């Protein structure tokens, strides 16, 4: 079941550019969706499995993006090295933040991560010398693998798609590991987890860092793909959108998070035609999903499908 889902997704990813050749729109939306999937899958490790909220996840997305942007444009680092540096920086910041921040629970944790997100955004806007301020940084070179430059959208799509599949595969394996079980236990009852000898603050730190690494990875890809970054891509709204993707898709399911990310990306694109009413419809749809499919799109719909399948089988003996 686990691998079947993975291969189905991989097939879909490959089929998309084949079914819509030279379709600029499909490729660009595909890239956006792919990046969102990496972000949502990473955030789901923290929110869905470990049960810890983060309202500042766009900050790690931004740290990855700005690390790539600054190191390549100002210091002429190779893109891949800049990406690796972005991961290191985000990982270290997450590790330093984790101990004090993850002692908090519920609303307090939400407030603290929100504060972190706002601070990171303020730095992006104010540290003009480094970040270019509100205008951002331009001229970021594309990724380059041993001379193969990712300089067109189809290549970009390929790289993001591969990265997305890697992220999903990693997430599936983390969840199924010893640490993954510890995280799920933590979400159920932190007290009971401690009674079994699980070092809960360590487990939470590990998942917070992992989650930040997923986000920074997506950030670097985003920067190299777009060629420019500005603070607007990493503000509070983005953090909230990421939380929405995870909840919408279904907490504690890797495919659910991926589903939510894709659905929300498509929704934004689809609603553009409604112009002024976009946000209104957007909000109404989210409310409807939460009311009628409280477990999220993925879990809710797959349960409905299973039920329909059983009913259909029962009717034709």
């Amino acid at each position, binding site marked *: 079941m686990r691998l079947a889902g993975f291969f189905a997704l991989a097939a879909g990813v490959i089929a998309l550019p084949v079914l819509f050749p030279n379709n600029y729109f499909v490729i660009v939306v595909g890239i956006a969706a792919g990046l969102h999937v990496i972000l949502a899958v990473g955030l789901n490790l923290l929110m869905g499995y470990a049960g810890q909220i983060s309202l500042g996840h766009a900050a790690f997305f931004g740290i990855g993006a700005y690390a790539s942007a600054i190191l390549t444009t100002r210091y002429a680092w190779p893109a891949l090295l800049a990406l690796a540096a972005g991961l290191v920086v985000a990982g270290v910041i997450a590790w330093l933040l984790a101990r004090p921040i993850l002692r908090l629970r519920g609303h307090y944790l939400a407030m603290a991560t929100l504060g972190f997100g706002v601070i990171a955004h303020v730095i992006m806007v104010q540290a003009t010398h480094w970040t270019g301020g509100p205008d951002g940084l331009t001229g970021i070179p594309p990724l380059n693998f041993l001379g193969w430059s990712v300089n067109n959208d189809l290549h970009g799509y390929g790289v993001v798609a591969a990265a997305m599949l890697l992220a999903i595969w990693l997430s599936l394996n983390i969840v199924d590991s*010893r640490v993954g*079980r510890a995280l799920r236990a933590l979400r159920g009852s932190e007290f009971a987890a*401690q009674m079994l*000898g699980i070092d809960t603050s360590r487990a939470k730190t590990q998942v917070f860092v992992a989650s930040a690494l997923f986000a920074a990875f997506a950030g670097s890809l985003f920067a190299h793909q777009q060629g420019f970054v500005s603070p607007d891509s990493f503000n509070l709204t983005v953090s909230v959108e990421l939380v929405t993707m995870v909840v919408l898709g279904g907490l504690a399911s890797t495919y659910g998070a991926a589903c939510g990310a894709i659905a929300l990306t498509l929704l934004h694109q689809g609603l553009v035609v409604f112009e002024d009413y976009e946000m209104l419809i957007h909000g109404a749809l989210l409310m409807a999903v939460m009311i009628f499919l409280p477990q999220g799109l993925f879990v809710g719909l797959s349960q409905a499908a299973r039920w329909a399948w059983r009913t259909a089988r029962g009717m034709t003996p």
Partner: protein
Amino acid sequence: MPSDEPLLEIAGLSSHYGPVCAIRAVDLTLHTGELVALVGGNGAGKTTLLHTLSGLHPASSGRIRFAGQDITRWPSHRIVAAGICQVPEGRQVFAPLSVADNLRLGAYRQRRDQPWVHQQLDRVYALFPILHERREQLAGTLSGGQQQMLAIGRALLSRPRLLLLDEPSMGLAPLLVEEIFRVIQQLNAQGVTLLLVEQNARAALAIAQRGAILETGCIVKTAPATDLLADDAVRRAYLGY
């Protein structure tokens, strides 16, 4: 059979919730192989004592020695690694995880000794055949009695030298209570040292070798279980006859 070497020595242990004193200068010693029942009314501090032993609640003063080491200020994961495991009140199984995953989590600190884990898993399944039957089922779908078995089985996988049981009979049908107590007795016969906290004082004292009575945070009496069962004051206060 109980030996003379003390496994657990609690000396002058106190613990507070803010300014409120929950346990006061508790002294208690457990020997290897013993089954000691800790009885007392609601709010006497039984659970707090267990949590303090497990490192889940800080001690404000006093000392806890376990197998020759001072573990008073150790974090909970080190205490479990040293061999004290608590079976929590109200079972606290991980409902969205399978029975097998719950048990595997019990062996969280035993990953370096997989052969032992597999052997112990077989022992737990032999002790509770229903868990083997339902190993792929989600723990949340088990009945209360089965969840209690799972909680005990999970704790056994942590390789405990001392098992702390917090109200294992709570909320169970009388027939299941009997079953759980039978298993506790069986574990003790196999050499597991147990500290059993119970409101069901009669059942607990019936299988324990010694009993301790906790009243408003203080141990007021420690004696062989048979003596406590025969004591008039104890009978009136805790056994209801």
